[in-house]
């Protein structure tokens, strides 16, 4: 037990050293990609908790991200900044004058998302499987459309520009490690066993005295919290947000990471989070004009999403359980692997 704690701390130290090195040497674009990796891992872990571990098919992640992003943006922009932004209609007094440090803003963004998670969870979590998916998808759309139509809070379709860029590598990876820690702690406790029990067999879980609804609500709102945090970090990272940013594609990307990594595998989500974020950037070359010999293909915007969707289809066809399935990479597993290598 003690040993693995040390190894984990060592791993975090290595991550810290890497970030320190990256912060000093890499260019802005690469650092942006590194930041996105951390945020995508946070989002993937939270969706995996909801879908992979508790078995609730939720497509509402973009909605929770939007809530986190808007709450955080409103709080970290100074009143003076906000005055120049709200040109359609004047902001409400409380929107105009609320201001908070970055960490408070991110936590409040997460908490607001969690609150919405509870509010929509109460009516929706009684639904099963596909129905829940459709209903949560509807929720995310409602959030987006509401954001478009309350200009005195969200500045309508214009969104916010020039959001202070507090989110650097330290913040994003700090939150990423914290999220990972919280989720792993929950999953390793008996509460985590109960989540998995609900996923495996709801009827049996009921017979075991488990208040299914309460536990589902816990998992759902906890996932919503992390999604809100991810959205808040994203807002500060990209500096501009508007309702169009939180369309279904956003949820789809995260779902893709979770499914590719393996539903019910934390390490799978991390690996796929890194892999897919990098690929999404690297694949941008397919959107540029490509010349092969004498044949030239014009650049088609959105081509990388085609490639990606194909990739997802291939994953589903040939490795339905994802990279990791439900397995995890653990220190004990690595030790076993090393021993086998020696023998």
């Amino acid at each position, binding site marked *: 037990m003690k040993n693995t704690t040390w190894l984990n701390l060592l791993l975090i130290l290595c991550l810290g050293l890497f970030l320190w090195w990256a912060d000093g040497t890499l260019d802005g674009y690469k650092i942006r990609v590194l930041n996105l990796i951390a945020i995508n891992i946070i989002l993937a872990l939270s969706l995996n908790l909801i879908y992979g571990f508790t078995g609730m098919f939720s497509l509402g992640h973009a909605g929770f991200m939007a809530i986190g992003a808007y709450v955080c943006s409103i709080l970290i922009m100074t009143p003076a900044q906000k005055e120049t932004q709200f040109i359609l209609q004047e902001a409400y007094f409380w929107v105009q004058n609320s201001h908070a440090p970055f960490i408070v803003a991110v936590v409040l963004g997460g908490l607001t998302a969690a609150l919405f998670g509870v509010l929509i969870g109460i009516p929706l979590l009684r639904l099963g499987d596909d129905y829940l998916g459709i209903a949560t998808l509807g929720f995310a759309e409602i959030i987006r459309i509401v954001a478009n139509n309350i200009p005195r809070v969200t500045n309508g379709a214009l969104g916010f520009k020039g959001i202070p860029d507090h989110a650097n590598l330290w913040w994003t990876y700090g939150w990423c490690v914290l999220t990972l820690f919280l989720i792993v702690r929950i999953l390793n406790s008996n509460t985590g066993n109960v989540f998995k*029990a609900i996923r495996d067999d709801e009827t049996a879980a009921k017979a075991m*005295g488990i208040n299914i609804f309460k536990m589902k609500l816990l998992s759902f709102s906890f996932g919503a919290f992390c999604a809100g945090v991810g959205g808040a970090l994203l807002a500060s990272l990209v500096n501009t947000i508007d309702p169009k940013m939180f369309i279904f594609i956003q949820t789809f990307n995260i779902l893709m990471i979770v499914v590719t990594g393996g539903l019910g595998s934390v390490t799978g989500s991390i690996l796929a989070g890194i892999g897919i974020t990098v690929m999404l950037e690297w694949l941008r070359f397919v959107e540029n004009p490509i010349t092969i010999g004498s044949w030239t293909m014009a650049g088609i915007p959105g081509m990388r999403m085609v490639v990606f969707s194909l990739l997802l289809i291939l994953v589903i066809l040939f490795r339905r359980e994802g990279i990791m399935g439900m397995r995890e990479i653990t220190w004990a597993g690595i030790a076993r692997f090393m021993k086998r290598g020696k023998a």
Partner: protein
Amino acid sequence: MSIILETTGLTMRFGGLAAVTDFSASIPKGSITGLIGPNGAGKTTCFNMITGFYRPTQGQVFFQGQELTGKSPHCVCRAGIARTFQNIRLFGHETALENVLIGAFVRQKTGWIQSVLMTPASRREENQLRDQAMELLDVVGLANIAQEKARSLPYGAQRRLEIARALATQPSFLLLDEPAAGMNPQESLELMDFIRTIRTRFDLTILLIEHDMKVVMGVCEHMWVLDYGLTIAEGCPEAIQSNPKVIEAYLGEEYVRHA
């Protein structure tokens, strides 16, 4: 002997079909009783009404003097009634040990916040639960395969694991739905001993549904016979065996000849 569970006039109708009609039973504390009847007689429906999976159309369930009618399954379990399922329902992706731990969750005092914060109280309790779970696995003879995934266990082990999981909820009343299904005569014999053992060891009252007549007649002290939802007989095994109504409805002439 005091009555631990009492049902009065339990009736369950699904639309026009009366699955169970007017089922009244008083079960003495510490007894092993049986519920038998041909297929589709309404035995499992009775179980589902007692454990809160179905809300009875009519009638009431009293457990230790407290009314349980219409309570949700998790409240019923919390009150001290545990059950197993006719078609085994384990948490397949979890290990045998985790399955038992999940059963113990209902009695766990420290919540998820304490586990996240790694408070000493939570760590102590989780360790304690783990020890108790291992003990239970030992009782059902599965301690050596505690780390195996439940769905990879052989059939008999799955049945026993389901009982261990039910025991982990610390029940005072245990409902077993066809515990001997799919077992060979030798295994059934062992099962009878096992049922008696856990009754004494965990101070239980047991109600079981069973098709295997050897098991029912061997282990039950009292039984109810259902046919088409109606209670057609009740009494001790000997009385049931010689009851003409039961013979006609369920045991059949063949059984009488062999017995």
